[in-house]
């Protein structure tokens, strides 16, 4: 049955995220069975906007067969047809809608990694096109029982949660996200003049030098839902201790209640209540894995709980997160690694953040509104 919330999400994705125009070519990617509730309205609304639209849909269970049975050549196959698609598409939307988030848990990790690496060739080429302004992309989610199960919810409750977080039940979702953009742009600009942040929380006392780095606002262009500001800190400027109260889920495995000690931007001690060995193995992945690639504040207050999905978790309103590994070159980050492990620190109860000695954040909120953005083109 038609669910108008999916129609509203489709319209938000087309009008705000990828700003689809008549004549554009849009590619919709996802899984056919679970993606249908969003794929069909998204395709319909794209057609109504005069765009050419087609789908590139997978079927659940096929990749599992490939990883289990494929030869080396089949595992590492990159479809030349798929790569050539990037030559004519203007925009693409990826819909994540796993029916079973653990379907690869028992697969050979090396074989799975090789299959993922092959699959990634497409997104790597697309990332370059996005960076050079030749392509617009957004990743979003369509609720499934599998995702609801990871969030300890019924599917109905999970749908409510997702649509609230996307603000598609608002009278004018596009206007909501435009305003979020304005606010977060101003916040990012303000943080751009900060030299050093000092984060205090439960078992957390960390100083982070961000001087000279660019902060970026995320407001529904490349992710829906969205709501964070982030940068890459100065590589040698992270010192102290931090405790990540939420589990981190990485490649289908969990790291619970991680505690890190950092000196001059390097992790020198790591403990975790669960998955400690796994955490340490990740830190030894390569030279950059012990460095910090990202520091960010989650500012979507409709996301009020942990759901084991990084698209939502890193945006939980009142949290900050830090990623070990790969930094953002465009924001000034220089750390390089094959790892990008997001770890989330809950600052909602005891948290305080000082910017160059001045208290700016308490109990999960910035204490004052940011100055309005100085120029409109940042909001775009």
């Amino acid at each position, binding site marked *: 049955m038609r669910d108008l919330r999916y129609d509203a999400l489709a319209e938000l994705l087309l009008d705000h995220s990828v700003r689809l125009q008549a*004549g554009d070519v849009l590619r919709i990617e996802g899984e*056919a*069975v679970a*993606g*249908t509730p969003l*794929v*069909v309205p998204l*395709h*319909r609304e794209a*057609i*109504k906007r*005069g*765009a*050419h639209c*087609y*789908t*590139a*849909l*997978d*079927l*659940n*269970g*096929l990749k599992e*067969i*490939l990883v289990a*049975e*494929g*030869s080396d050549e*089949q595992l590492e*196959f990159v*479809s*030349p*047809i*798929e790569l*050539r*698609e990037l030559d*004519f598409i203007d925009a693409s939307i990826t819909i994540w809608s796993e029916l079973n988030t653990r379907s690869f848990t028992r697969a050979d990790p090396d074989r799975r990694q090789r299959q993922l690496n092959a699959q990634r060739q497409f997104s790597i080429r697309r990332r370059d096109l996005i960076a050079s302004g030749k392509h617009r992309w957004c990743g979003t989610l369509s609720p499934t029982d599998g995702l609801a199960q990871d969030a300890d919810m019924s599917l109905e409750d999970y749908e409510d949660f997702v649509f609230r977080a996307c603000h598609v039940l608002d009278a004018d979702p596009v206007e909501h996200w435009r305003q979020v953009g304005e606010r977060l742009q101003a916040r990012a600009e303000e943080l751009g003049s900060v030299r050093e942040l000092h984060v205090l929380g439960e078992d957390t006392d960390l100083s982070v030098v961000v001087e000279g780095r660019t902060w970026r606002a995320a407001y529904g262009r490349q992710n829906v839902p969205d709501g964070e500001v982030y940068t890459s800190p100065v590589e040698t400027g992270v010192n102290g201790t931090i405790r990540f109260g939420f589990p981190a889920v990485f490649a289908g495995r969990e790291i619970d209640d991680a505690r890190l000690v950092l000196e001059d931007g390097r992790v020198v001690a790591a403990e975790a209540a669960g998955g400690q060995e796994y955490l340490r193995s990740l830190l030894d992945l390569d030279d950059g894995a012990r460095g910090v690639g990202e520091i960010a504040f989650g500012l979507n207050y409709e996301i009020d709980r942990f759901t084991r999905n990084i698209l939502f978790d890193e945006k939980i309103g009142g949290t900050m997160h830090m990623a070990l590994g790969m930094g953002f070159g465009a924001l000034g980050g220089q750390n390089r690694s094959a790892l990008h492990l997001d770890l989330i620190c809950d600052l909602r109860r005891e948290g305080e953040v000082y910017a160059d000695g001045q208290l700016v954040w308490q109990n999960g909120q910035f204490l004052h509104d940011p100055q309005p953005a100085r120029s409109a083109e940042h909001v775009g």
Partner: protein
Amino acid sequence: MADVLVGFCAAVREGDLVTLESSTLAAPLVREVYRRVLRAGGQPLPRITVEGLTENVLKFGNDDQLDWVNPSRADDIESADVRIYLAAPANTRRLSNIDPARHARYDRSTEPLRNRYLQRAAAGELRWVLSAYPTEAAAQDASMSLAEYEDFVFGAAFLDDPDPIARWQEFGEQLDQVADFLTTKREFRIVAEGTDLRLVTEGRTWIPSKGQENFPDGEIFTGPVEDSVEGEILFTYPAVFNAREVEGVRLRFEAGEVVEATAKRGQDFLREMIAMDEGARRLGEFAFGMNRAITMFTRNTLFDEKMGGTMHLALGTSYPETGALNRSALHWDLVCDLRSGSEVYADGELVYRDGQFLNGTGE
């Protein structure tokens, strides 16, 4: 079924690029076909559709959108070694209320793709197989329960045989014999209730269809000499095209062209389709259905045209490998039951009566 599709019909080999087109309803079969393509050393490229996308374009698209050809589909047809298509509809009448002119325009836009893939297939560069996965919608069209329809589909595919591939090979040899026999004939006359039709096939190739491109299969077809068709034919079964049904179709031909077309139901649609283009009023195919496991009409051309004891004609485009020349955006198969009270004469000699060839071939 997956074993036969991959091992026999498409005969997937090491290194083949195999597009696998279907809908979510066929998921169990898609997974098994995918697995067998991998095992055969091919590279499966799934192309899964969901219900409603074509409807979106036909309902809401402007002319520019109706005419658009997806470059990646063209790339598929250009690059693939094998194309496996598994039909699995959720609702065969989803597009019944679409304006036929818009539908025809949309069909015309994909005609170059169709021509290109038929061309590559005829040149032996692209192997393809069209098959069907039983769904409730298809069962409903056949007036059966899903369980009955599954039995029907798997029976028609000889999957109840202990060695289906051996059975198809044996059946193929029988069809070869009939094709050889028909090739020796110059002119045909079909006489049945409401039907007295003459056509010439001299110089054309009769092709036995043995399970390589359609599955299930079982027919022998050619393309008649374009201006040779004379007389009248009454089609026993309803004809379904673009989700619309036409019943009681009667056509009269003069010098290969339809000069009179009537139907008990859907006459306007019939006439609109025949007027689609120059080739739509000529025949592109003349064929005998030879699969005796298909005994009833199910509103699905894949099965209906192979029904043992029937013949069919197609208005519109022909298959180049038969030597036929007619070209059109239309290819509409119309089936005529010959199982009782009917006779076929070849060069004046009675060769077929009440659904059987008289010389014992094809049995």
